[in-house]
């Protein structure tokens, strides 16, 4: 990387990496936002909280159900606050939502989102728009990455949510009261706030696994996997 000793080239490189950080940040935000809606959707679809607690919002061209229960919202918000930081830092490789039977303590369902971070490769071309007197006319320059438009990414995400929604058709009936936990596979060197502690993977023993769709941005790829306990 820093093999060049010529000052202008160095400067240019620095500039590029700056641009990159921004787009990486945007991508991380998008992924984090996807996680947030995933959590809400799974909580609704799997009946962890009553359906009346959820209200529909328009997102990704779908009606997403988001909990309107203050406590649940605050809980998820706390998770997301930390997740955002980790995502931007590129510390996370997996996010897992585990649904656990309250009575038996058995993990019955496990939603896993694998995150892959792409190495920044090509320089991005977007230049900062200057504040001229006609800034509104310049505003139409898209800031999305070159290879995939925002709309395409949104569609991919929408497809995942459709799958999550549809997965209730094959997932076994959850009996009894269930609760959920959020796990994160983070790099060993991540900063860990006090609310987060080490845990086991909470794998489902002899579980069935179904790979769902994934989506990718310029910087991230997210794959979805649900594993569940087979009904005996």
């Amino acid at each position: 990387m820093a093999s060049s000793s010529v000052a202008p080239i160095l400067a240019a490189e620095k500039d590029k990496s700056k641009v990159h950080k921004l787009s990486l940040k945007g991508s991380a935000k998008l992924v984090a936002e996807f996680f947030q809606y995933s959590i809400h959707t799974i909580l609704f679809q799997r009946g962890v909280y009553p359906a009346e607690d959820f209200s529909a919002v328009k997102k990704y061209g779908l009606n997403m159900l988001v909990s309107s229960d203050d406590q649940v919202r605050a809980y998820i918000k706390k998770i997301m606050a930390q997740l955002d930081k980790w995502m931007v830092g590129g510390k996370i490789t997996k996010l897992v939502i585990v649904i656990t039977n309250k009575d038996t303590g058995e993990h019955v369902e496990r939603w896993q989102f694998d995150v892959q971070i792409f190495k920044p490769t090509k320089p991005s071309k977007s230049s900062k728009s200057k504040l001229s007197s006609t800034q509104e006319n310049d505003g139409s320059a898209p800031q999305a990455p070159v290879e995939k438009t925002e709309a395409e990414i949104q569609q991919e995400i929408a497809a995942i949510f459709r799958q999550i929604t549809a997965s209730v058709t094959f997932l076994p009936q959850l009996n009894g009261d269930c609760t959920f936990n959020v796990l994160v596979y983070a790099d060993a060197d991540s900063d860990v706030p006090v609310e987060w502690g080490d845990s086991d993977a909470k794998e489902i023993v002899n579980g069935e696994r179904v790979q769902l769709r994934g989506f990718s941005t310029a910087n991230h790829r997210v794959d979805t996997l649900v594993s569940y306990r087979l009904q005996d």
Partner: protein
Amino acid sequence: MATASVSTPLKSHTGIFSSRTAGGRMPLTPSPRQRAIPINLNSSPFTPDKPTNDGHRAASKSVYGRDLSSHLARSTSGAHRNSPKSNIARGVSTPRKALELGVSDFTLTGTGLHNRGTPASTRSKKTAPLRQKAAKTSINYAADRFIPNRGASSAIANVGSGKLDFQEKQRPRTGNSEASSVLASATDDAIAALEGLSLDDGEPASYSRPSPNTVAYQDSLADACGVNLNQRILQFKPAPPESSKPIDLRQQYNRPLKPAGAGAAQFRRRIATAPERVLDAPGLIDDYYLNLLDWSSCNQVAIGLERNVYVWSADEGSVSSLLETSPDTYVSSVKWSGDGAYVGVGLGTGEVQIWDVAEGVKVRSMFGHDTRVGVMGWSKHLLSTGARSGLVYNHDVRIAEHKVAELVSHTSEVCGLEWRSDGAQLATGGNDNLLSIWDARSLAVPKFTKTNHKAAVKAVAWCPWNMNLLATGGGSHDKHIHFWNTTSGARVNSIDTGSQVTSLRWSPHYREIVSSSGFPANSLSIWSYPTLVRNVEIPAHESRVLHSCLSPDGQMLATAAADESLKFWKIFEKKAGAGAGVGGAGSSGKAEMSKQMTIR
């Protein structure tokens, strides 16, 4: 939801234009570029990608199965050297021989210098840095005969066989490329366990011969978790909130998935999402700061297209060119007077002209601005003009000394200006992100100056049913609609629309407001007020919607966009439920009661 594209039959308008527009596109003719609005019939929501249950299991097996053996076949045939991914294989070219000898590659990797010389650099880009480390470390730890331990710990029963060991050595590569870390290979885990051990215990780096038992324990532990020890699995410790009541999913699945939305849908009116009519507007200047479209109380639409002003009669469907400016300037704004008899035309030079439309003659020219007049507003005989300089003048059009007031507040181009219907207040918005609310009785200073918007304020609309309510929308860096109480100056509501707000129009009949947007949505959004619920978002144009205006009966919205088309939308139709018959709109309009305005 049935969206039929409105096909307007071509009329015999060629006679009107034959002389003027030979060869070119004719202004305000039905657009040839009628696009059929795509009906989003989503295919079955559940079409999983190939990898279902079986697919996944196959993938998991492939580590040991077909995939590997095929790879092995390839590598024994010598092809691995060319494989760009085969980094390890390259390093193990000697072990390949050893393989035939039946010697474990670990022996060789430990002693062979060639492997020491294949650090991360030979690893392909796909390999995560994390793994690189592990791979390097492996060389150190595997420096000695180590096979029994691995055999004891990892679940692989085939230790000792050199051939299979070789496979093992290659597995990290396969595993990584499969990206199936759930199935992280036992080898990786073993290596990681070793490394983790040395890290956690703070052992010196020279520590190279771990106790077999510890290794075995770490290994099996890591194996059981199925993870790399370079990673931590973290759990959000606080317990999630209790569910307010027990849930029977069976019951939940039997009800509509979105009960709230379903209930509201019954009360929601249907809004036609297809345009009633599409006209061409060639040469429409793509400039946010201009105001080139207006609909008069006499049901005529005036539009400024570069140097011309055209008047399109919605009653007759006929179009006429009202004026053409001198070549050195262009039309920067048009505005009908309240009675619909005159149209004010602002020019790029700062001149303001008033035209009698019935006669087709200019009544007068008013000078004063030295920069382009981008926005105008009538209040009876008063014409307010906002210019690029930031100045707003009030002209009394009846008298020779027309300039009666100079409103100084904005420091940059004024692009939004709207009189309240009773003429008591005036709202102006500018490119300085400022919203000024003026009291008509004292125009020396604005009554309120609002700085909430973070971009130019072009969209300004007074609520028809609540005189004190003003809605304003900001440009592309702001994307908000703010609602103001203009008596107290308080901001009463806000909406983040997600895109540049180019215009706002209140419905006179429904408690709704429509916003047109530029980048990125290029859509029309209809919002309920005061609930601020977005009732519908219509993808209106291919590029940003620049101007909009309501028909005199308040049912129809005309929008002009940078894609040089003028579209008419029946979004505030008075009678609900008639939305299905959009296709026959041309004729149904005529058949309806005479009170209603029609466009032809």
